[in-house]
């Protein structure tokens, strides 16, 4: 599967800033929309309760603004994606149209889920979020480029460095983020490890 299509080396596009610390996965995809057996239809429910009133009329929210409709990079603040482990959250954002996330920090399970879906989730300093947000808000069409090779974000002639777990970066660059294929290669070693576990046969 490690072909060039799946190598995530450079993500470019437009950004949208969704401000806030501790944006939890219940907010990203409310639980009632998880009554489903496929992720396919989740895109339209991303951030539903912060985007829409109970009568389905839109609220004021960056993701409801036409000028950000083409954004494919979401920018936010601290502890993005905290709470429930639901992969429905990054799946909904992916289907909404996002290819990557920039935030001050990410919750661990959310970051892991993003990595497994081939979605870079990169962390930058607070000042960089503020700077990027200002640039995007001033010119929504401005180009944002995330380089996974250089660990940088380029926007409006400025370069910001980012951090992310090195294993996530490696698997994105190498196109091996869909872990199941990598894990399947080591069948004999897996069986050896499993059968060596003291509890493998109920301690008999």
């Amino acid at each position, binding site marked *: 599967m490690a072909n060039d299509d799946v190598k995530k080396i450079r993500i470019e596009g437009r950004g949208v800033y969704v401000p*806030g610390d501790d944006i939890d996965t*219940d907010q990203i995809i409310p639980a009632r929309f998880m009554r489903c057996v496929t992720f396919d239809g989740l895109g339209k429910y991303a951030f539903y309760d912060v985007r829409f009133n109970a009568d389905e009329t839109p609220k004021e929210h960056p993701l409801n603004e036409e000028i950000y409709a083409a954004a494919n990079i979401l920018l936010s603040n601290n502890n993005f994606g905290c709470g429930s482990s639901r992969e429905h959250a990054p799946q909904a954002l992916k289907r909404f149209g996002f290819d990557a996330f920039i935030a001050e920090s990410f919750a661990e399970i959310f970051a892991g889920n993003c990595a497994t879906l081939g979605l870079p989730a990169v962390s930058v300093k607070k000042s960089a979020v503020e700077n990027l947000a200002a640039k995007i808000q001033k010119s929504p069409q401005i180009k944002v480029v995330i380089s996974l090779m250089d660990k940088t974000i380029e926007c409006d002639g400025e370069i910001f460095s980012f951090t992310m777990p090195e294993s996530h970066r490696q698997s994105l660059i190498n196109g091996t983020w869909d872990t199941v294929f*990598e894990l399947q290669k080591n069948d004999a070693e*897996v069986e050896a490890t499993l059968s060596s576990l003291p509890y493998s046969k109920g301690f008999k």
Partner: protein
Amino acid sequence: MGKHLVDKIWELHKVKTLPSGQDQIAIGLHLIHEVTSPQAFAMLKEYNMAVKHPERTFATADHIIPTESRARPFADSLAEAMMEAVEKNTKEYGITFFGPESGLQGVVHIIGPELGLTQPGMTIVCGDSHTATHGAFGALAFGIGTSQVRDVLATQTMAMGKPKVRKIEVKGKLSRGVTAKDIILKIIAELGVNGGLGYAYEYAGETIEGLSMEERMTVCNMSIEGGARFGYINPDQTTFDYLKGRKYVPSGAAWDKAVEFWKSIASDADAQYDDIYTLDVNNLKPMVTWGINPGQAIGVDEPIPETASLPGEYQDSAGKGLIHMGFKEGETMEGKKIDVAFIGSCTNGRISDLRDAAEFLKGKRVAEGVWAFVVPGSNSVKIQAEKEGLDKIFEAAGFQWREAGCSICLGMNPDKLVGNQMSASSSNRNFIGRQGSPTGKTLLMSPVMVAAAAVAGKVVDIRKL
């Protein structure tokens, strides 16, 4: 130099280092439920993969299951489709399914321990962030996403980085009315909702050692609310006593071998930790949340902090929390009116939680206008409670007595807040919209504090009653 439990379990289960730098880790026990598994099975089919070790995966239904009538088909056709999917998938792949007919259904984190599936020294995963509950037994237990559920089904392994370990040493004696729930709410309030990022929390010290297994599960359950994906307690005699005689626990000579192994995986006395934090609980008060994340918790008679006095990273959520909840800085939680009282969930839906609440409720009545209900964490908890007559006490007090499930902890089933109702809840999350109404409000607290709030119609300090 000694090793801690994480090192020991990791060494046993590590298959190899992957090219990404992560380790491939063998999984001893895989628990699945109806919400985060159907897509994983669909991916298996898409890739034409089989389930590698169906005997290591166990399934139940908890999130979507109605707690009033379980008559099939469910009134909610979407919930029915999810139930049918888990029934079909487990049957097709030869996975044991503890559905309602088995008599053993319940919240996944309640039934794993009560069946003895959860054992010390194992790696345990589930597509659910509260999987750290099982860490109470000295297992390395953590929540995973659906693609990883697929990975575990297909290979019985997953790709993972080894966490750092923070030892949280708890000392002191809990006052009357103060519970394990208050300990974990205090830890989260002190270390922050993302303080545990990258860490496993080892809960230790005299106070933790003195807790029952059910109390230990409550503590470990909410590790993720502090940002820690893993939480655990070293196995000891309390652990072994709990496990003995349970359905999936070995007996006879195998039991002795098991105990020997379980003892061996506990952290060594001279283990090195990445961080150590000490909490004295001698003066700990019953904790109640005032905001929109579990770290926004204070002693019931303490003032809501001034936003400006908080560290910068907490101010945004504090401001939003006050607006959503309609509270002001300096107010106490004592006296806040409630509309709903919920006792249940993977945090506090065990028999000891129900006993505590029932003991308080004997001879009392729920305040007028409060919707109060108890949802046992499992069918076994329900049966045990009925044997003890707890259901009668709850019903006499005006609580509804329901069937086992996740219920109103999250808005996925018919149990939901309506409009801007305020709920006193023994669950684990007070996020905006969590309990099913986008304008609903949640106050997290211990089960006995919920019972007391139900009777008073407002938050009260259990210590004063």
